[in-house]
């Protein structure tokens, strides 16, 4: 009964808290381990370094035996260093080591003064330094018997990723986007989060495709329960061929029938890095440039990457504008139809006369008129999206101007309705990504039918059911509408509905992403250079 239920709930909460505490201890242990000096034994040093980076699969270690029988290990992170470069600058010179370098000290001397002469070399004494340098694209050389490591800076040879993502264009901010190659994408994130607590777990999915993927999170920041939940969901994927993260999202979602995207999708490494730093988890897949961020909230869908690169008043205003555009695109047309059909008393007489006059020649009811125009717009948009850019633009012009004007002149549609449909459609397109707009377009049809059938009563019914549905959604176990409900006012203002200046952001505590932000009082660090407030 309920008593045992309560006991069960209590034991589960204790288990969860224990898991979170364990993760915190893990992060603390990792920090302690990072401060340790490099042991002289090569095997211990390599193992400690691998352990510090979570035994990441993209951490590559190459063992060499020099001519003087001294063992050396070269460590790099795959994707951050050019393979040919590491061969020419590091491996080839090591292979030419003289016989005279037969003691560890002699090898170290030779490496510093002769062997790797052309490269930018410097010794490093602890693991934190090594981890940071590895993330920056350096190679690390460890010599058996030497309690130091040599860091070879190869980062200058790296270049940015090929192209700016087409789905998330920004006016200010990095122009990098992910590619279809997993190791490149993981490396792009590693470059931005050069910390030893970043964890990259690889997995394989798809019974026939055997697609490789990566689960990224920051130890001590990401909620371990969310990470575990994602692992389990990914393990439950039973598809034969997995070619895109969109397929994984269906498995990650608790409510796959919902029209709303419960996970944010992005092509940008800077967005992924920011999400990881905030305690979210990123899922990547080889063969697709789209990464999935979990948990995500409704507000994330309204955010554009450039919100973080522009000044806060502008970013906040844009976010409010996007929310207003969502509300208008979903309910604007339905409200108009409901008012025109049932609630004339709301409209001033002059306006009502204008509407009635423009509707007079239209031979079908308001609902049909709205449906025809809305469907026409969706048709034009779909056709325009699939055509080459030049033709697509022409098609839009023809659709918007010629067809619209002809419909009004021919008495097939009223001018107010055309204006409203156009504004409603443009409002939908104000959202940052196209995929986000789809559920809102679909719901606008639902509300339109309800509004034209039952007036504002129908609109209220539809709006309440949509609100209830949104409130019931969760993303990786976190409320989808947070921090609005559950209410976290500070978090809502800080980086959800609006964005406060960087100096007013609090340091996110462990596992306290925007979904759970509470009880954080510490002020954030100074804003990153080059980024406005």
């Amino acid at each position, binding site marked *: 009964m309920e008593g045992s239920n309560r006991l069960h709930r209590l034991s589960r909460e204790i288990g969860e808290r224990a898991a979170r505490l364990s993760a915190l*201890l893990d992060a603390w242990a990792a920090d302690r381990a990072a401060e340790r000096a490099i042991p002289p034994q090569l095997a211990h040093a390599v193992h400690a370094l691998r352990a510090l980076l979570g035994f990441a699969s993209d951490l590559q270690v190459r063992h060499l035996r020099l001519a003087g029988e001294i063992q050396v290990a070269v460590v790099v992170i795959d994707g951050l260093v050019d393979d040919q470069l590491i061969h020419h600058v590091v491996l080839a010179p090591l292979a030419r080591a003289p016989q005279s370098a037969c003691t560890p000290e002699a090898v170290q001397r030779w490496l510093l003064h002769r062997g790797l002469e052309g490269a930018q070399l410097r010794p490093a004494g602890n693991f934190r330094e090594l981890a940071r340098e590895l993330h920056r694209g350096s190679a690390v050389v460890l010599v058996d018997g030497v309690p130091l490591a040599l860091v070879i800076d190869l980062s200058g040879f790296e270049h940015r990723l090929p192209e700016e993502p087409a789905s998330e264009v920004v006016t200010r901010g990095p122009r990098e986007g992910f590619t279809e190659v997993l190791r490149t994408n993981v490396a792009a994130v590693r470059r931005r989060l050069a910390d030893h607590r970043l964890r990259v777990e690889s997995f394989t999915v798809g019974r026939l495709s055997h697609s490789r993927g990566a689960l990224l999170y920051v130890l001590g920041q990401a909620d371990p329960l969310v990470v575990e939940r994602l692992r389990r969901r990914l393990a439950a994927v039973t598809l034969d061929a997995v070619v895109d993260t969109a397929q994984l999202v269906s498995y990650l979602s608790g409510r796959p029938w919902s029209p709303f995207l419960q996970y944010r999708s992005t092509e940008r490494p800077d967005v992924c890095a920011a999400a990881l730093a905030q305690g979210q988890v990123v899922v990547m897949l080889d063969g697709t440039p789209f990464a999935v961020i979990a948990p995500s909230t409704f507000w994330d869908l309204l955010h554009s990457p450039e919100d973080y690169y522009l000044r806060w008043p502008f970013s906040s205003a844009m976010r409010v504008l996007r929310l207003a555009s969502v509300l208008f695109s979903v309910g604007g047309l339905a409200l108009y139809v409901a008012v025109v059909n049932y609630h004339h008393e709301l409209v001033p007489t002059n306006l009502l006369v204008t509407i009635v006059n423009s509707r007079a020649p239209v031979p079908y009811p308001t609902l049909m008129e709205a449906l025809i125009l809305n469907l026409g717009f969706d048709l034009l948009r779909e056709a325009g999206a699939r055509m080459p850019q030049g033709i697509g633009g022409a098609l839009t012009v023809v659709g918007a101007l010629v067809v619209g004007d002809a419909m009004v002149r021919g008495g097939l549609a009223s001018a107010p309705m055309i204006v409203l449909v156009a504004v409603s459609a443009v409002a939908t397109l104000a959202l940052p990504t196209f995929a986000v707009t789809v559920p809102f377009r679909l719901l606008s049809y639902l509300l339109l039918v309800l509004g034209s059938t*039952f007036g504002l009563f129908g609109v*209220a019914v539809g709006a*309440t059911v949509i609100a*209830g549905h949104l409130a019931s959604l969760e993303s990786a176990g976190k409320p989808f509408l947070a921090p609005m409900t559950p209410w976290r006012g500070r978090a809502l203002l800080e980086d959800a509905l609006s964005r406060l200046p960087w100096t007013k952001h609090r340091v996110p505590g462990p596992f306290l992403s925007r979904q759970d932000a509470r009880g954080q009082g510490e002020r954030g660090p100074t804003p990153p250079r080059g980024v406005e407030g």
Partner: protein
Amino acid sequence: MNRGIVEPVQVAVNAIVVVTTAALLYEPGPLVARAGHDAWLAVLVGTALSVAFAWGVWAAYFRPERAPGEPAGAGRPSWTGRLLALAFAAYAIYMGVLLVAQVAMTFTTVLPEMPIAAFAAGTALTGWMLSAYGREALYRTGQLLFPLMVLASVANLAVSLAGNVDSRELLPLLEAGPERILRAVPLVFAFGSEVLVLAAAAGAVRAPWRLALFLPVAVTLSGLLMAAYTAAAVGVLGSHEVARSTFPVLALARQVRVSLFLLRVEILTLFAWLTGTFVKEGLLLSAAAESITGPWDWEPAGNGPSRAWRRWPPPCWPWRVSPTPSSCSTTWPGPSPLSPGRPRRFSW
């Protein structure tokens, strides 16, 4: 993780929704008919009584974390407890039916060409859908829609009062003595006592001790809002007009012309009121379903009617299939970076 756990703030917000939803539209009329222009004083007195009742609800149900009819321990509920749960469910169903009837009647006056059954069915179905999403989602929905309701109420009040109120209608105080006020107090208390329906969530509140403050404060705020609306209605329309009117608040809203675009705003007030009504209907249905299923050994109380219906038939029936457990154990953390554990690479 949807576990049917709600927060104290959500309970408080939904308490305001429950108390004010029906009261704002209906209360001023009969109240002024009984207490005259001193009706707003009756609201304050009745609110004090309701606050005490709300605290009693907290002490009786939320503090011991036990919904009506629930046993104290892990054993089976007593027959007294079961009957109490049935009575509670009957109360919730009665209030739910009453609410559906109120909405249907109200909207029949707004849209007379529409069949009354459409409004009744629409309200009942929407309430059912909200409750079917589960307790947690239901309380969140109330919290989500609450700002809309408050904004509409306060804006309506503010624009109604601007330039329209005649304070002489409210004076002199206690003209007919305190007896008339006392006669109206039970009516206010009837609305305030509807907070009882939230007792169904007892045992599912994250920090129930906080409700000792939150619940009375919520009822107080509801009372203040109702008093303000009653006073506004009397101040603008006069006590005779209010006493005669079925929906004085709508009549009050008709006085308002807020902009060139909106000629009358009463439908917008109704819109906000309607959303609150749906949430309240959902709370009532959820409370009824949980009270029926919980103490009657069908299964531990869950997330509302949808799960309650899924729990039918009871487990004693031969073809009853146990639901799969929703919880899962975690294997976190993996090997510590300090320990020589196996690599954190996994494959499937």
